[in-house]
Every structure is written in structure tokens, then in C-alpha cells.
């Protein structure tokens, strides 16, 4: 690294490249129709209701229905207790299977693999389009596990 401290590198130019690139990026984002809102997650859209893991646990204790939006193999390995599989990539078929339970549910919470996972958002929006209000477990399974909340790890067929 000392090699790079050699005076043959003009550090003002180095900083200028970084500053100019960043400035163009912010300017493009402000002017472009494809720009994003910097202050909130790009996964969140109007109507999405994010709920933190501890509050989701309270909903679970009050009988809320949890839906696992991850691919079905992940649900087979482990899941939030009582959760039904509703994988985003197989939504239509899984929805038909889960619909009777959905109609009886007093509250619905969707979760997926967390952080950059978009499946829970997509499933919640699809449910909303079908008339079901569904909250989203903020940061998904990792947040649930980080909070040391219970998991059902019994393998399912």
C-alpha cells in the first residue's frame, strides 16, 4: 500500500474522479425518470406494511397466519411455527392451496430470506391485489433468528 503513497499519484485528481463520479450519479438520479428515492429501501413501495420481528412474534401469539415466500425447499427445512408455504415463483398454485386458511386468518404476515429478499414484498402485493391485507416481516428470517424467536425445524415432505 505504501507503493500507492508515492508522490507520482496526484491525490487531488484521485479525489476529483471520485467526487465527479459521485456528483454525476446524484445528478443523474435526481433528473432521470429511473431515479430512486435515496432515503428508503428500494424494496418498499406504497402500501407495503413492514413489521419488526418482535411485533411479528406478538402477532403470531395472537394467532396471525404466517406465509413463507421463499422457495418451497426452504420452507420444508425450517419455518416460523405454523407458517404455510406461499413461494413467490409458484404463487398462483400455492395461493389456491392456502386460500381457505387465508380467509379465516385474523392477520397475515409474509416473510422471506431477508435483507435483499424481495419475495415477501411481491407476495404481499399479490395478496393485496386479491383483497388480502398482509404485513411483511422486516428483514425476514434473519431478523427473526437474530431476535432468538422460535423456529419449527422439523423436516416437511
Amino acid at each position, binding site marked *: 500500500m505504501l*507503493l500507492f503513497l508515492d508522490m*507520482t499519484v*496526484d491525490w487531488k485528481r484521485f479525489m476529483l474522479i471520485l467526487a465527479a463520479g459521485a456528483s454525476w*450519479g446524484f445528478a443523474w438520479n435526481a433528473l432521470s425518470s*429511473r431515479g430512486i428515492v435515496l432515503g428508503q*429501501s428500494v*424494496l418498499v413501495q406504497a402500501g407495503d406494511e413492514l413489521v419488526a420481528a418482535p411485533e411479528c412474534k406478538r402477532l403470531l401469539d395472537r394467532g396471525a397466519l404466517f406465509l413463507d415466500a421463499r422457495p418451497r425447499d426452504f420452507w420444508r427445512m425450517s419455518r416460523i411455527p405454523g407458517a404455510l408455504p406461499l413461494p413467490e415463483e409458484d404463487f398462483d398454485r400455492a395461493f389456491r392451496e392456502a386460500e381457505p386458511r387465508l380467509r379465516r386468518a385474523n392477520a397475515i404476515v409474509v416473510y422471506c430470506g431477508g435483507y435483499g429478499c424481495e419475495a415477501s414484498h411481491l407476495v404481499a402485493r399479490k395478496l393485496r391485489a386479491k383483497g388480502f391485507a398482509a404485513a411483511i416481516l422486516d428483514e425476514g428470517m434473519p431478523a427473526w433468528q437474530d431476535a432468538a424467536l422460535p423456529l419449527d425445524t422439523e423436516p416437511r415432505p
Partner: protein
Amino acid sequence: MKALVSHPRVHLVLRLLLGAFFVYASLDKIANPAAFAKVVYQWQVVGPVPSNVVAVTLPWIELLAGGLLIAGAWRREAALVVTVLLVVFVVAAGSVMARGIDVLNCGCVSLAKDAVPSAWPPAWMKGVGWFLVTRNLLMLAAAATLVTAGRAGQGAGAIEHRQPSGALPEATGSGGAGGLP
């Protein structure tokens, strides 16, 4: 090997290849900042809001640095920017791998999601894994070569800027990198 690494024609080839890669890699990200922000967030190195800032600024820095490398202006500084970026990418990829996070598309070049999984490129080339780390380390070696080029008088663009006397314009100046034409 040392003679090869310090040869001006090798520097020219490295500069053009590295510059072209970074310019190409920036285009899809600039066109799709939301998709790139999701990919950055999937790396789980920074939170959602910093991911947005990275997604908005990083591609333009890549474009500018790559363009300068191709143009042959501010060569050493542009190569240093690329070097720093590659060090960050390698460290972040190592962090992702160490934590066992499955990032299917690293977002390095293309952000396209395959509706149907395609045979090419294979998943191990698109995701965060050893292929990505190796590729970045090779590019890092190339970028570091360009940064240090000219320290002993063998400027990265010497072949293009050789003066009639044979003296290299960059060899003595503290600003060093050749400057804008």
C-alpha cells in the same frame, strides 16, 4: 516477467482492457439504479439506504475511471480509483462468502434476471464466489501495475506520449500521470 510487466505496450493493453470492462460494467447499472440497489443490498454489507447511495454513485465512478483509462488521461489516478474499487469488491465478496450468503447475481456487469435459467453464463460465473474473487484479483493486479507504472520512468502511456528526444513527459513531474491532453 519484470520486463513484460513494465513494457509500455503491456500497459496500453491493460489500460484499454480494464477501462473497457469498467465502462461496460457501469452501463446496465446506470440504466437500472433500482435493480442495482437491490443487488447491493443483497450483499448485506451495507443497509438499504447506504445501498441506494452506492447504487447511484458507484456506476458513475466506474464509468469515469474507465473512460479516463481508455482516453489515456489521468491514467495513474484513474487506475488507483479502479484499484481501490477492486480492493473493496474483493473484501466485500470475501465477507459475503464467509457469512454463507447466497448472492446469485453479483451485479458486477449485468443486472438482468433470467426468466428461464440459462446455460450461459453458468451460475458460478454470475454469483459471488471464487470465480468473482479470482477475476477481481487479476484485474486488481492489472490496475496496480498501471498505478505503479512510470515510477521508474516507464509511464503507462509512454508509448503514446514519447517525445522526440525519447524522454518521457511523466517521468519527472510530481503530478505524474500525464494529465489531460
